């Protein structure tokens, strides 16, 4: 035990005296979560739009008012002629133009139908889609309000409700993803680098000749990172609760338990990487290419797994991060308990045991 404390103390000296690793440890999580939370977002907010109102009557005015009253859009320009539409788009600020046809009110009352054209700048297809959906929903709402007065025999009103994230806040989706990436990065990359560093500097040899057991060396090297990763997880959760108002519906204890489980599985991967790489550089490359990319691309963090080709879906099953993201979303957004995520938890436990087993075996072979 005394040996262990001495070892861990030494490990903390290493970490705190290396500014780069300190930055990766604590700077990255904060920077990433803020970046993903604020800058990289699927929501639209205050999108600049222009209006071309050929009709200019009471109803179009009311609709325009509703649109400008919503926080999604701000009307920055009223244009007069069709020809101006193109130039407005080319300037780049305006993302959409609403084009009300002539005699909008008249048509609406007489023919029971009137047209407004929604032109969106589809150089960014996602945003264009979202804008058009938002405008549509404002129009629909207006229509429903008007129709209340009139009795119509049959009306089917679809009422979409987005559960667990009613406002479709993208930060709800990013927080579990970023948390996963950071825990993976800190745990796997940092441990694999710190173990290979001892190999590279020749101190590992000295440790192996000393009475301290290889197993103790590994645990001693890994322990500080468990500790630091837990702190990181806490920072991320606090940031998302207080800055992004993200709810944590489920049990915090369960969240802590699952996070520690994931951290341990990432550490096991880190140890495994360190057994197959001789230098810090290799360890870093393997961690980045072999862990980070799959985590970002295949874990379902950004791209939905169900729309991937079958072979990739298959690969995604082998990525611990995928299961952890499901668990995180379940606990944080849906507020589920262990009874709903026991399968994912078991898979994570299984993977951890497997990685541990392989690295212990590899480690022994390496000692020969």
């Amino acid at each position: 035990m005394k040996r262990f404390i001495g070892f861990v103390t030494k490990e903390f000296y290493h970490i705190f005296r290396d500014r780069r690793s300190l930055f990766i440890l604590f700077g990255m999580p904060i920077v990433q979560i803020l970046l993903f939370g604020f800058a990289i977002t699927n929501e639209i907010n205050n999108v600049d739009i222009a209006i071309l109102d050929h009709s200019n009557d009471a109803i179009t005015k009311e609709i325009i008012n509703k649109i400008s009253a919503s926080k999604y859009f701000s009307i920055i320009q009223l244009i007069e002629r069709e020809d101006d539409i193109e130039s407005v788009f080319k300037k780049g600020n305006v993302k959409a133009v609403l084009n009300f046809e002539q005699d909008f009110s008249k048509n609406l009352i007489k023919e029971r139908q009137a047209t407004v054209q929604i032109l969106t700048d589809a150089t960014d297809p996602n945003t264009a889609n979202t804008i058009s959906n938002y405008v549509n929903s404002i129009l629909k709402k207006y229509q429903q309000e008007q129709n209340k007065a009139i009795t119509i025999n049959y009306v089917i009103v679809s009422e979409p409700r987005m559960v667990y994230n009613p406002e479709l806040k993208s930060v709800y989706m990013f927080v579990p993803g970023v948390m996963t990436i950071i825990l993976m990065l800190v745990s796997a990359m940092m441990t694999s680098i710190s173990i290979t560093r001892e190999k590279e500097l020749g101190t590992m040899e000295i440790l192996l000749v000393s009475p301290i057991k290889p197993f103790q060396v590994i645990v001693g090297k890994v322990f500080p990172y468990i500790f630091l990763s837990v702190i990181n997880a806490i920072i991320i959760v606090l940031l998302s609760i207080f800055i992004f108002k993200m709810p944590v519906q489920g049990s915090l204890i369960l969240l802590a338990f699952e996070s520690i489980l994931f951290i341990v599985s990432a550490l096991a991967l880190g140890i495994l990487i360190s057994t197959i790489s001789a230098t810090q550089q290799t360890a870093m490359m393997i961690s980045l290419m072999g862990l980070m990319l799959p985590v970002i691309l295949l874990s379902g963090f950004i791209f939905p797994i169900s729309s991937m080709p079958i072979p990739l879906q298959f690969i995604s099953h082998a990525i611990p991060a995928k299961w952890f993201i499901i668990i995180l979303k379940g606990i944080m957004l849906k507020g589920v308990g262990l009874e709903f995520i026991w399968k994912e938890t078991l898979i994570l436990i299984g993977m951890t045991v497997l990685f541990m087993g392989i690295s212990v075996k590899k480690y022994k072979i390496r000692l020969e």
Partner: protein
Amino acid sequence: MNSNKVIQVKGLTKMFGDFTAVNAITFAVEKGEIFGFLGANGAGKTTAMKMLIGISNPTSGSAHVAGFDVFTQAEDIKKNIGYMSQKFALYDDLTVKENITFFGGIYGLSKLKIKEKTKEMIDDLGLEDVANQLVGALPLGWKQKISFSVALLHEPKIVFLDEPTGGVDPITRRQFWEMIYRAAHQGTTIFVTTHYMDEAEYCDRVSIMVSGKIEALDTPKKLKEQFQVTSMNDVFLKLARG
């Protein structure tokens, strides 16, 4: 077993597949002796040493180090030996004192003992000014001396030195050998590999390995007589060229 023989090796062999790295070597080292373990690169001296310090399993033969069997009692051997490699054993980003504390701790020394040893080492080596400096900032020669003292921290019966003086100037090497003599004088057995032939002259006895076998083993004086040359360098050349 003769209690004065701290290392006893009989027919020790290590094979890697078909390749015999160490071929049935036999020798013994006495307590307090400075034993030079010489050989060209690839002659098998590092492999042989790794078996003796318990981090590599021999294929066949027998070996006892500090009275313990390398096959079954490697953990006991580790407690009784010190080791210093040509790469540095110390952590550059730890201070001298922190290094001493860390290695003392690994060998299970008590806090009090570590404190005592730290003071002793600082006095002996004149480290007062640098004790709280990071090791990385010290010159190579200093690092080596501290490294050697750290290897002696837990008062091992035998110290294994793997090319300890690589890359330092002759004066520092000279000082380093004085430290070795002092340790040997206090009863510590020194097992040293080197490829500086002048250093071989400082050893009590020398063994020379050529392609996995020990081809010569005696005092430097007798070896020179046997090969009718005037320096160890010539002994080595004669042997290595067959």
